[in-house]
């Protein structure tokens, strides 16, 4: 490691102001700080700092997504096998799927990080770590049959218009990964919805008799629930869907990691679930059709609900920043997601739109929380003056 450090120290002046490659300073900085935590020491204020930094934070979130990624890989193979009547083992299914996912991941990181590096350089800033998480989120919420050029286009759109124009990581208003998905959803609906897109090779090859590839949400929207998967299959994730979102179990493992490390907000996760259950129950009471009568807990294991609640709603930048606001924000996401699912036939899945909508609302929620905080403080001052 010492020789690597020496090499970097030798090359560093070239990338600093006045150096030959000063224009690549941010890029050099990103690589250098990736390899070595810098030697910066406290200049003002506290003399010691907690061991955590943004790189560690982001890497923990990526780790939390790994179970979903592994299961998603396996499920691609498994679903493909179901569709075409091919028998494969556990490992074979996994390898089959992983080979399909890998290019999507590579394109996502390649394009996204490329834009991040360029944007950082233009601004003369350090490269921020935010895209480490976004880059993994995007593949996990796309259908496996997505063309790679669409991935590239969506990533570019989301990173530039969702994040960089606002100032980069920490300043964005909407969740970047969901914005990428929403872009594709509205720009290329035929590649993002329907029954065929979720199963590898299904659009081009003829499946075995009786296999439709429809997700449980689509079946509910179409009213063809007779063939719907069981609750336990949906919980485990043996269903068609976006790459990483089908298995509630693996998402829960991720949730456990995020909550235990304190990086993901349990308040948002819990309140999202509560919101969905509340509206689900209300639908039950007023039920006039089969969908409204669906037991509320089914909503938690179908589609992207769990994945969205754990990995997207909890994005600290776009969620509510106040602790009280987080309860409202999460509850509204859960509630809206179920409302959209049950009452809007055009969108079988409501989670993406619910989160994006609440992203826009979260500053407003914070505003009211802060105003009530200020009012309480004023009241305290008044009662003290006139006890």
């Amino acid at each position, binding site marked *: 490691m010492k020789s690597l450090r020496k090499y970097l120290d030798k090359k560093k002046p070239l990338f600093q102001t006045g150096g030959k490659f000063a224009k690549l300073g941010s890029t050099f900085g990103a690589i250098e700080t990736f390899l070595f*935590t810098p030697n910066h020491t406290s200049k003002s204020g*506290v003399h010691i*700092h907690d061991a*955590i930094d943004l790189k560690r*934070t982001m890497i923990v979130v990526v780790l939390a997504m790994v179970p979903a990624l592994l299961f998603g890989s396996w499920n691609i193979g498994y679903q493909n096998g179901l569709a075409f009547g091919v028998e494969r083992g556990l490992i074979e299914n996994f390898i089959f799927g992983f080979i399909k996912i890998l290019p999507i991941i590579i394109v996502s990181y390649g394009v996204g990080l490329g834009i991040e590096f360029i944007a950082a350089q233009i601004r003369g800033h350090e490269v921020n*770590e935010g895209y480490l998480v976004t880059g993994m989120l995007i593949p996990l919420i796309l259908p496996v049959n997505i063309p790679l050029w669409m991935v590239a286009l969506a990533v570019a759109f989301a990173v530039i218009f969702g994040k960089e124009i606002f100032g980069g990581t920490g300043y964005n208003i909407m969740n970047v990964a969901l914005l990428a998905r929403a872009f594709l959803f509205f720009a290329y609906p035929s590649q993002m919805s329907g029954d065929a897109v979720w199963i590898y090779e299904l659009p081009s090859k003829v499946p075995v008799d009786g296999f439709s590839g429809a997700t449980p949400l689509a079946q509910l929207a179409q009213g063809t629930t007779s063939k719907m998967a069981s609750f336990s299959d949906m919980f485990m994730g043996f269903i068609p869907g976006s790459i990483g979102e089908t298995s509630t179990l693996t998402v829960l493992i991720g949730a456990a990691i995020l909550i235990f490390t304190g990086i993901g907000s349990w308040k948002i996760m819990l309140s999202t679930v509560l919101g969905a259950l509340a509206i689900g129950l209300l639908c039950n009471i007023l039920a006039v059709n089969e969908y409204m009568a669906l037991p509320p807990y089914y909503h938690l294991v179908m589609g992207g609900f769990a994945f969205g609640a754990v990995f997207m709603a909890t994005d600290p930048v776009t969620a509510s920043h106040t602790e009280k606001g987080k309860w409202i924000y999460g509850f509204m996401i859960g509630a809206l997601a179920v409302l959209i699912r049950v009452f809007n036939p055009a969108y079988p899945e409501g989670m993406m739109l619910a989160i994006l909508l609440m992203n826009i609302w979260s500053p407003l929620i914070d505003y009211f929380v802060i105003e009530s905080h200020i009012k309480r403080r004023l009241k305290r001052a008044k009662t*003290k003056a006139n006890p």
Partner: protein
Amino acid sequence: MSKVVHLKRGLDIRLKGDAEKVFGSSVKIDQVALKPTDFPGFSPKILVKVGQKVKAGESVCLDKYNPEILITSPTSGEVLAINRGERRKVLEIVIKADGKNTSVDFSKANPENLSRDEIKDQLKISGLWPFLKQRPYGTVAKPESTPLSIFISGFDSSPLAPDYEFILKGQTSAFQTGINALAKLTDGKIHVGIRPDQANGFFSGIKNIVITQFSGPHPAGNVGIQIHHVSPVSKGDLIWTINPQEVIYIGRLFETGNIDFTKIIALTGSEVNSPKYYQVIHGTSLAGLLNKTTKQEAKERIISGNVLKGENVGADGFLGFFDQQITVIPEGDYYEFLGWAMPRLDKFSISHSYFSWLFPKKKYKADSNLNGEERAYVMTGQYEKVLPMDILPVFLIKAIIANDIDKMEQLGIYEVIEEDLALCEYVCTSKTEVQRILREGINLMIKELGN
């Protein structure tokens, strides 16, 4: 029975190098220095010349904007140097001690027989006045004002802090006299905050004070936190604060008529061979104290004060005006290969993404490395976990960054000074310089609205 306030939020950072409750061998005080920079907002006018002989209690400088506020020499000797920095700003007035510690003779008196103005005059002329700080802002109290009450924290909860029960032992009489003098300065009460285990300690024998117990982790011992839970500072309120050792200075003045700036400090930190307590003079030069007591294994950072709000003074520096602790930690100017991926078993983190939660008793050797680079705010809810106040710290900091005076006022800038938000800075994932930003906000408030 005193009131008990249970504080849940906060953090005790467990560091190596707690001072053993014994005194180290006495150190010869060679030089002392007064640092006008220890007082936020103080603009010094120097009253002495290099080479001039001074006694303890003799005026050395005054505040241009409040000429009644004098800073006096802590000991007798000769002015050795007046060190200036950029734009001729006075950094230190160094006095070579003659070892006799003779004091100017201020008449002794029982403060109970003196009027408020007489006590004020005595404190001003002897140079004890600047020990009184005011809230809001943590600046030197204004002599013409009268506070609602005076607050004293009876314990220090910061990392490796000295134990007040130990350093105050045997000084009950001087402390009581000091309290009696202070009691004349306010129409309200004198509040003292203590830990529950001090219930039968030093302060239980003191009259004329209202005791409140505070349980919980740091910053429970910060006087700002205690004020918040007893009598929060709103716009227009004025509260004064002072440290117990400084109350003793006041007591000694009235009891003997002399200035005696002898104080007890703790020499602490992982780089100190055997951390102990020392009896020194206010403003003492650290060179003698640090001679052969530190390990000298690595580059050391000498902090006057604690690791959260002290000042990096260097081995040839001086003890700060309000400090009762020296902390020596290793400098952290090294590179760590793939630091973000390493287990870092030797580093502490409040977050469970490292493993310090597995070792709840382990003590750490913390260095000054930032452990990462500065970033925009990303994480939320971190500051709130370590600030036991009804304040939204991140929004206060953002209001300061935006220079929004209305919001700063509404969000509670009157209630906090740097030390209260120091833990927020410690836990910040984005390594934001919270204390620097807060002081800039306070300075802006003073500039726009007056002190």
